Structures are given as C-alpha cells and as structure tokens.
C-alpha cells in the first residue's frame, strides 16, 4: 500500500448559514520516498489539504489512509499519536517555543511519547547535528537567525524518524539566500530517503520536488511529474 492514499476528501466549513467547501473531493496517492509539492494560490484549499494530510484535522467526507492506517475517522488523541510518530512539521513561522533552548524544542515530540530524558537528549543532539546546529543547542530562538530557527524546526520534525516530513511554506519567512540553504537541506533529507511534502505558492520552491500537485478551488487541477532536468537543486 502507498504511504498516503486519500479517497474523495471533502472539507466543508459552516460560515453562518452558508457552507464553504474548502476541498471538493481530493483523491491522491503518494508513495514512500516521494518528494511532492502542493501548489496553489491562497484560498485554493492547499492549507486545508495540508492540515488533513498532517492529521491536524479530519475530513468532512472521504477517506484517508496514512501508512495503511485509516486516519480519517480517528479521534483527537489517536490523531495526536499519529502526528507524534508519523509526521514531522516544518512551518512558515517556525513555531518554536520562544523561551526554550534549541535542544528543548527538538526534544519536544519525544516528551509526549515517554522517551527517557537520556534518550531524548541523545536523539535531539543527533537531530541538531544533522541540520548542522550541534554548536547552537543551548541557544534560544531569539538568539538564532531565521535560517537557524528553521533548521531547529527541521531537527524537531526529524527527531522521531517520521514517515512524512510536511513543510508548509518553509521559506516563506526567509530571505532568498537562506531559502536556498533550507531547500538544499530538504533536498538532502529527501536524498537520504525521507518522504517530503512541501506546500508552497512559489514555483521556484515547488520545482525542487519531483512531482507537483496543483490545487485550485478545492480540487486537484494538475498532477505533474517534473523531469529531472527541470528540477531545481541537485538530485
């Protein structure tokens, strides 16, 4: 079975008396090891789709299997468990705990699955070294540059060895030089075998991926594979 399989996903919000359909029957399949970009203008439903894939939310209709487990009908705590073990998030705004050190931020997912303090420390250190921040572990986010913060967030996403790395506009708050640096790191992580989904509205960024899902008005408008020579970055 594929890593991600969705069947006819609908997400409907009640806005007063009106019903707004953010997703209108999205059916996609993503294999393990793929590098996928979800593209679309704002309001297209790409954030909603990301929230569903990231198990932050459940669909109004349709089915979703992640790693052969049907997550579309799970309750809050089961979803939390899936997020903890299967998914690593990288957000546009980094979403680090401002008062905690880089190390503690990276340890965070491990706290909620009962990893011992010793293992937590070792795993978090390893993850930080992977993103080249082994010398910044005691720094707080405010003492780090934007690119370094995003790398801390990536270390946090990786620390639990998730099945899926989900990056929502990962370079949205970064300058172009730092963006390149972060995308290089994502490319490298893909090369190491991680499955990565990037949500973005920038073509440059999307072209790092091998496959682009374009979404428009809550539906998949296009599903393109990007030929190797058109890809950005080194693969």
């Amino acid at each position, binding site marked *: 079975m594929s890593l991600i399989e969705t069947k006819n996903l609908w997400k409907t919000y009640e806005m007063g008396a009106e019903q707004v359909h953010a997703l209108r029957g999205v059916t996609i399949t993503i294999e393990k090891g793929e590098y996928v970009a979800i593209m679309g203008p704002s309001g297209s439903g790409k954030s909603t789709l990301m929230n569903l894939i990231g198990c932050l939310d459940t669909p109004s209709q349709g089915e979703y299997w992640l790693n052969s487990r049907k997550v579309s009908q799970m309750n809050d*705590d089961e979803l939390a468990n899936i997020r903890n073990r299967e998914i690593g998030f990288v957000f546009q705004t980094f979403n680090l705990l401002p008062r905690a050190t880089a190390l503690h931020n990276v340890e965070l997912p491990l*706290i909620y699955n009962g990893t011992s303090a010793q293992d937590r420390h070792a795993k978090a250190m390893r993850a930080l070294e992977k993103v080249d921040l082994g010398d910044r572990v005691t720094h707080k986010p405010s003492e780090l540059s934007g690119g370094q913060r995003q790398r801390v967030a990536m270390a946090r996403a990786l620390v639990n060895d998730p099945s899926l790395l989900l990056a929502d506009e990962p370079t949205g708050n970064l300058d172009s030089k730092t963006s390149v640096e972060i995308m290089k790191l994502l490319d490298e992580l893909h090369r190491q075998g991680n499955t990565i989904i990037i949500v973005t509205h920038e073509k440059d960024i999307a072209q790092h991926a091998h496959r682009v899902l374009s979404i428009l008005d809550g539906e998949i408008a296009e599903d393109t594979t990007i030929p190797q020579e058109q890809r950005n970055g080194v693969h």
Partner: protein
Amino acid sequence: MVTGSLFGIAFDALRTNRLRSGLTLLGVIIGVTSVMTIISALEGLTGSIEREIEQMGPSTFMIGTLLTAMSEQEALDKFKRKPLDYEAVQIIEDGCEVCDKVAPRAARGEDLKYRDQSMYDIVVVGATYHHVEIYDLEVDQGRFHSYEDDLYRRRVAFIGAGVYEKLYEGLDPLGKDIWVGNQKYTVIGVAKKKGSVFGASQDEFVYVPFDSFRRQFGISRRGLYISVKARSVDQLQEAMDEVRVLLRSQRHVPFDQPDDFDMLTAESLLTMLNSLTKILRFGLVGISSISLVVGGIVVMNIMMVSVTERTREIGIRKSVGAKRRHILTQFLFEAVILTLSGGIVGIVAGFLIASALVGMLNVQMNPSALAITAGLTVSTGTGLVFGIYPALKAARLDPIKALSYE
C-alpha cells in the same frame, strides 16, 4: 515518565513568570494563612484546656448544683437549687461502696495579705487532704495539708505559685504568715507553676483545710462541690449510680423527677469542650475559607490569561503530538504548584501567627498534624478545583486555530 516531564514544563513556565506567579501566590497564601492561624490557635487553646481537665483523672467525677448550663435559663434554674451541704459528703462517704475518696470543696474570693504585700479577690478553696490525691496538684515546696490539719482545723495554707511570687518574692515562704480575709494562716506549701489559660493565671489560689474554711466562712449559698474518686475507672459508672441514689434520697427527690444536682466526669467535660469548639471551628474556618476562595479565583483568573497567552505554545505542543491529557496535566500542575507552594508558605505563616497570638496567653503550642494535613489538602484542592477549567480550556483547543493564533 511523561508526567514527570510535564511537571518540569509546568515548573519552568512558572519560573519564567516569577512576578506574576508570586502575586498569584499571594491570594492563596493569605487564604491558607488565615485558615491555619485559626485552626492552630484553636488547637493550641483547646489542647491546654484539655490538659487542665485531664488533671481531674479518669476515675473521678464532680458533684455540684451548678456545674454546667447550656442556657441562661438553665443557669438561673440551677442557681435556685438547694445547695449541697456537708451532710451529703458524710452520706457518700458512709454509703458508697465503690467510692475510694470523697473530697468536698468550697471556694470564695478573698483578699490576701503578707506584711505590706496584698492581693485582692483571690480564690480561696477549702478542701480536704484527699484533694491532692484526686487532682493533679503538684507540690513544689513544703506539703499539702494532711489528715491531721483537717481534723484539728489548723489554720494552714497551701498557696499557688502566683501567690508565692507576689507576696513572698525572694523569701522562703514556708512558715510565714498569710492573712486570708480576716484570719491569719501559716504557709505550709507552694504548688508548682501552671502558667495561664486565656490570659488568666492558673497560679493564683490558696488552699486551706475544709473545716478551717467552714469555720471561717461557713458554707455559702452556692454550697459545696464534691469530688469523688471511684476505686477504679471500671467502677466509675457504678460509683456515680450509687452516689446518685444516695443524694436523691438525702435531697428527697421524687422518683419521677430528674436529679437536682449535676455530675460531671473529665470525659463529659471534654465532650462538652469539643462540642463547643466544633461550632467555633466550623464558623471561623468557614469565614476564613472565603479568602481561600478568593485566592482560588485569582489563580483561575491568571490561569485563564496564561492559557490565552500561550495559545500558540499549546498549538505547537499539539502539532508535535501532545494529547489532551498532556496539556490538561501541564496546566493543572501549574495551578497546583502555585496553590501548594502558597499553601506551604501559608501553613508556616499561619502557625507563626497563631503561636504569637496564643503565646500572648502563655499557652504552649505544637504544630498540629491535622492543621498541616488540612492546609496541604485544601491548597492542593484549591489548585485542582480552580485550575481544572482553564486546563480543560487549554486541552480542548483546536490545534489549527491555536497554531494560527496571533
């Protein structure tokens, strides 16, 4: 494992907000302090009264016409009773098989004088030599009066430590004169110092032989008190029954009428004391608990603010896999750490204040296990009760909304 980490997270959150945590604590501290002060002070006072009562001994009971009154009317009615006379003492002595000792006692206020030193309206007690055996009256110097002193109606006096200090400061009191009212007595002994209860000295008294007292003052309208010691604790009830029968027949009480005298044991006195302090305790603790509720509301308010402020943090935690119960526990821990540490400070402060208050009355006080347990339980409970709503609010936040909260 997870719980321990959550405790650490809660603790860190409070530490980074020191001033706010401190101010929040204040409410709980004041609440617990006031509850503790009252519990400790009451415990200290009743404890010292209990020790006083226990001096009577478990096999002894007291007879009088007005020993207890739960209302003014009852007191007035009892005041009209025929006083106990000396004949009653003799009847009990002759008729009660299981009575070991019968000690009559009469008391009145008199002025004392030694040379140019005087004391006014001091309790003068006429008692037989048994008295010292029935009550825990400890002799510090000299002796209590003897059978012979009683028999020959000697004018000898056994004085309290307070009287000794006032009249004979720096002197050897034994063998000195003492004027009790208009008669001169000789001091033969001094009692051990007892201290004071409710600010009233327990050491200002004079004991004289019962018959000397009778000869000087007669027996007043209020009559006698008789203390009876049964042969053993097991025979206390039997002794009381015998005495009741003897006295009823001496006083011609018709069989269908209740006793026209009171009988009291140390145990019944303690029961009375407890029922009195229970009301006091409930009332005062209830009133002071209001401040605890206020403290709790302060904690709840701050926790609500904290949850709102940290909405994004909660979103981050949820996105990396925190379950509802993790968030709930973290915030409950915060509330309980706050109230519990406030409680600990309050317990110490309350005990110190109570000691200072009760100390002014010269009563010695120990930290009571009950007060400490109550303080810890109440402060933890306050944290749980007032922390649960904000914590639930935090736990139920939708991760997507929380993450996009600005």
